[in-house]
């Protein structure tokens, strides 16, 4: 096998294991590998090494790196999956909040002014996401803040005596807000997981 053919096989492997990953990351890795393969072939030819030995050397380097390649891809895919799940969970929770506010009301009946506080949670999410540029670490902080805001609203509603109305009870206020706070916190945890991956997975 010629050195060029071995290099093409190594490049093909890089194409395969970067398939479906962010284009910029995949391209950087493939371009860097192309330069490395070219440099190795040039250096070993200049040193008078025989073609089959150069080809074996290239194949050996690729094969020994397979576990690292696969582990890197696994972490990348896991990070992307975590980010998407976090985003889906956050959007679902926000839309469900809006629906609940309009349909039945969260603290009181529909249209209760106290429910307007939840608009603040949604605004915090939207503005925070834009400020964080939708990056996972920033999104995690925003979603944790939303979970905290949700809990704060429950505390305010209880302190304001909303639980004594015929419509809302303490378990209802605490339960509903706890569910939303848990959903936001779960989204935050998924974003944080996605944010931690790159340090191990360039």
């Amino acid at each position, binding site marked *: 096998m010629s050195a060029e053919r071995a290099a093409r096989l*190594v490049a093909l492997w*890089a194409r395969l294991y970067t398939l479906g990953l962010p284009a910029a990351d995949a391209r*950087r*890795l493939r*371009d*860097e*590998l*192309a*330069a*490395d393969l*070219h*440099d*190795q072939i*040039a*250096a070993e030819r200049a040193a008078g090494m025989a073609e089959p030995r150069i080809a074996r*050397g290239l194949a*050996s*380097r*690729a*094969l*020994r*790196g*397979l*576990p*690292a*390649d696969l*582990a*890197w891809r696994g972490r990348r895919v896991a990070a992307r999956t975590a980010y998407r799940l976090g985003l889906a969970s956050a959007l679902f929770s926000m839309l469900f909040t809006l629906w609940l506010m309009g349909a039945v009301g969260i603290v009181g009946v529909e249209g209760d002014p106290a429910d307007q506080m939840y608009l603040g949670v949604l605004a915090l999410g939207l503005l925070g996401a834009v400020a964080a540029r939708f990056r996972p670490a920033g999104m995690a902080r925003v979603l944790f803040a939303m979970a905290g805001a949700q809990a704060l609203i429950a505390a305010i509603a209880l302190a304001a005596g909303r639980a004594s109305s015929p419509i809302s009870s303490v378990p209802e206020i605490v339960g509903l807000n706890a569910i939303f706070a848990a959903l936001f916190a779960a989204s935050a945890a998924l974003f944080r997981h996605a944010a931690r991956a*790159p*340090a*191990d*997975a*360039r």
Partner: protein
Amino acid sequence: MPRRKPGTLLPLEAEIVTAALSLLRAGEPAFHGFGLAQTLREQAGSRALTAHGTLYKALGRLEELGLLRSRWEEAAAAEGRPRRRLYELTEDGVAAAQRVAAGVAAPVSGGAGAVAGAPAAPVRARSRTTPEPAA
């Protein structure tokens, strides 16, 4: 990949920063992947070059840790061959490499404490990738 103890570098990462420091002292602050693989082979007295997958993932991690920065070689300098990604030690990288070279395991200011007997380096993630010009 071996599990990383907080505040430490993995063995290959320690070898890379040490090699980068020796290149810096030899007047070659910027290095590329294959050149580094050759240097590592010489330093280890080995016959085999470090595997692609292992080497480039380690370089990426060191960049994320803020110990290396990288940029693409200028197209004119490549003279028709594929452009190389050039790496350089950052100030933190030089400090970490000096500690590794000296075999000192001292706590790192502003970073996680080092584990005794292991090479110390700050492990706060901070990318220093130079913005990439259009190819």
